[in-house]
């Protein structure tokens, strides 16, 4: 497997098909969490970690259980989301016991992650390629699945962090009263998305 392919998968997942700004997935957390930079960083770390593990789990579940048994098409939604929910619960208990400091930093974000669409979307994409329309891959090997998931998670984190810093600035601006708060946040997100549209087609992705 050449490095080039990994690079393209990463670039697509990270920037060109950015999960938040181009694919519109996980927007609730995007607008809800980005009110401060600290919470954005905490959430990002938690998302990166949970995504990597849950994608590995769903990839294995699909390729070793659901696909061989031929029951994937109608069981993939419940089984994937259950795997993610179960893993998040276990992880929460585990971190609480073993690493209280870490728990303090990202513990409160963990329950939110179960319903974070980005986790489910990435986990489903690596199992059933084409779920999020990505032109690069038709079948993911496990390393490719990792690269892809890491790209998505990092793209999520980067967009969240940048958005949080922009919002810190916008919060103190004399925005028209009707646009204060969420409306202006949407306009900002729109312009961020506009800036990213120029990257479509980079390296043929």
């Amino acid at each position, binding site marked *: 497997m050449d490095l080039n392919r990994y690079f393209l998968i990463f670039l697509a997942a990270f920037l060109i098909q950015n999960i938040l700004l181009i694919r519109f997935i996980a*927007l609730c957390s995007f607008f809800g969490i980005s009110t401060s930079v600290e919470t954005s960083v905490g959430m990002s770390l938690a998302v990166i970690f949970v995504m990597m593990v849950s994608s590995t789990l769903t990839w294995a579940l699909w390729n070793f259980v659901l696909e061989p048994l031929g029951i994937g098409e109608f069981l993939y939604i419940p089984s994937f989301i259950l795997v993610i929910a179960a893993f998040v619960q276990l992880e929460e208990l585990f971190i609480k016991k073993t690493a209280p400091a870490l728990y303090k930093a990202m513990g409160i974000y963990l329950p939110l992650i179960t319903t974070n669409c980005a986790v489910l979307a990435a986990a489903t994409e690596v199992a059933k390629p084409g779920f999020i329309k990505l032109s690069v891959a038709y079948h993911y090997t496990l390393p490719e699945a990792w690269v892809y998931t890491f790209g998505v998670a990092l793209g999520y984190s980067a967009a969240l962090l940048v958005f949080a810093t922009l919002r810190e600035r916008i919060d103190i601006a004399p925005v028209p009263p009707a646009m204060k708060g969420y409306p202006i946040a949407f306009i900002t997100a729109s312009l961020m998305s506009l800036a990213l549209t120029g990257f479509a087609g980079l390296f043929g992705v």
Partner: protein
Amino acid sequence: MNGLTGEFARGVVRENPLLRLMIGLCSALAVSVKLESSLFMSLAVIFVLTMSNIVISALRRVTPENIRIPIFIVVVSSFTTIVDLVLRAYFPAIYSRLGVWIPLIVVNCIILGRAEAYAYKNNIIRSAMDGLGMGLGYTLVLLIMGFVRELIGTGAITLLGATLIHMGSRFEAPILAISFPGAFLAFGLLMGLLNKLEQRQRRAK
């Protein structure tokens, strides 16, 4: 207590899921590119939301507190799978356009949010009304967005193959309206407009 109509009306206006509670945004922004996809997505969400509210409410006395989230998820994902399979069998063209958003109904924050905040604590009829009201609130915003964006961005409105409105050939449709940045922009402006109207109403009182 103003009865069942109150439960119903609350979701449409005062606690509109998209404009007030800021949940369920991802699918709303993505599918509102066309009136037709808005309509089908809304129907799917109303169905899943109402049915899962009813079932969760019916099971609320036998559901143990600790594992309620996984149980909610099983219920929601069952109904999502039904919608997924039905749409794929009978409306393949619409299914392919809605794409990932049908499976992602599972993690649509509106549905799990209402299950947790409402259906788990109230009786079946009230939960059903809450589901219908919230679903209708979602539908209303989606239809407005879908109508405006399709009309401006393509210069025409088509529904199930029939052209309802055509702006004429002199109208040069700005593709911005149906692009990714346009979704954020339209939503932000819609929210700002409603805020403005609300302010005016409050001042008039």
